[in-house]
């Protein structure tokens, strides 16, 4: 049972190993703050949708399961969307369209189809937390690297010397920099997995 939880964090990390859900990872990982906000939203949706779908799996007809999943997921996305809009409007503006887009996020849909529809509620709950933390871990790592190199700050605080902050590596914050950083993280992950095996 505990394995359901840990699988998603390292061995089957949705981003760094399965390479799904990359759009929000590349788009909003420019700062640590945005990354954590995105991670929290995904964890919330992932847990609730996993649990709900697992609970309703006996009642969902197989032929129309995907539309049903999407309706369930979009319910939770709407909740988090409105909540963020109301309480943290600044972060909401930064994340932009990527909050509503969690509806069609590959990770959420993938866990629903591949796990929650077949397994029990507790297992699906743990799987949701595990995958969510795996996603948040990856996007946090991306956000940390990109914010440190691209602006010389961490969570908005100046941590690198002023000389660096005057001329940060803007490239890393630009879209190609996102691809570069995720490629390196995936490479390191592959290396770790290979040396472990």
């Amino acid at each position, binding site marked *: 049972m505990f394995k359901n939880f840990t699988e998603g964090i390292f061995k089957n990390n949705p981003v760094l190993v399965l390479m799904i859900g990359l759009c929000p990872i590349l788009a909003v990982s420019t700062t640590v703050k945005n990354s954590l906000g995105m991670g929290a939203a995904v964890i919330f949706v992932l847990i609730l949708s996993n649990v709900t779908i697992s609970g309703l799996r006996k009642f969902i007809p197989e032929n129309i399961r995907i539309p049903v999943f999407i309706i369930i997921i979009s319910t939770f996305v709407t909740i988090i969307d409105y909540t963020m809009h109301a309480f943290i409007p600044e972060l909401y503006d930064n994340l932009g369209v990527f909050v509503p887009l969690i509806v069609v996020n590959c990770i959420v849909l993938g866990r629903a189809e591949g796990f929650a529809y077949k397994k029990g509620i507790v297992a699906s709950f743990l799987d949701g937390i595990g995958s969510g933390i795996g996603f948040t871990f990856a996007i946090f790592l991306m956000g940390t690297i990109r914010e440190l190199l691209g602006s010389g700050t961490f969570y908005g605080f100046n941590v690198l010397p002023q000389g660096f902050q005057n*001329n*940060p*590596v*803007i*490239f*890393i914050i*630009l879209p*190609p920099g996102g691809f*570069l950083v995720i490629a390196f993280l995936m*490479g390191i992950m592959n290396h770790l997995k290979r040396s472990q095996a």
Partner: protein
Amino acid sequence: MLKVSSYPHISSETTTRKIMFIVIAALMPAFFGSIFFFGIRALIITLISIVSSFACEALCQAIRKKPITINDGSAILTGLLLAFNLPSCVPYWVPVVGAFFAIAVAKQVFGGLGYNIFNPALAGRAFLMASWPSIMTGKWVVPRLGTMSGIVYSLPVEMTSNATPLTALKDYSSVLGLPELLNAKSTIYSLFLGMRGGCLGETSCLLLLIGGIILISFRIIDFRIPLSYFLAVFSLTGILWLLGVTPVTPLFHILSGGLFLGAFFMATDYVTSPMTRKGRWIFGIGCGVITVLIRLWGGYPEGVSYSILLMNATTPLIDKFTRSRIFGH
């Protein structure tokens, strides 16, 4: 004893090391020219760039536990070309960072010499341009004996005092009389000799031409790529000049910017340019067309480096489509 080995079976004296050092030798006229035009700082920037490339290559190969092949000269050549693509007044850390990106990311991550998709020196330059645009294009050094925009007499407007020929064309071509001054014979002469502002190794067309002729006569590079590149730029800008789209002559377009450096020394990189003859024509024409498009309609005044990088990306495709069919296939 029969020995089975893969082709080519005819061995030759030409090694990677030899080719690299001939190319480096061919760049020497332009190198000494850059020291003459931009002073001792050009030498320092070049040396920093070469040493960083060299060290980075050795370090990467040591980390990857591969045989260390820094003696083949390819890292030295990359460092030299990278420095040629920098203004001589950049801070000293710029060539170090650029060399790191060129060698570690654009070359070694892809698998080392022979496996890189993009020309390492140009990838390094593109990285620097994207990260520090103000350092890379904000300030230039006035060359000895020349002026920044290459216009020799009666500097009409003070604004051209910090504009290279192509920046002058891009930003100030609406200024009355400026296009005529850019087209003047004296301007064309100073462009040809290298008495104008620009990256430290790109300015002197004459010295780069000497290097290019050395390479072609030693059969190190194929004349098709530079020739088709020049022809494409010349004919396209010629048509656009006759149509009145660009106010300057094709000659100005050929001699300004980094076209000579790019066409002879960077578009012809063995690893990142097509292998077939037909493919090389296509490659050169593609580079020329993209260069003109960027110069006239793009956001940057110069498009040589990006055009070569873009065509590098199409090289495998060009090779695939122009591969000669085996007889009877």
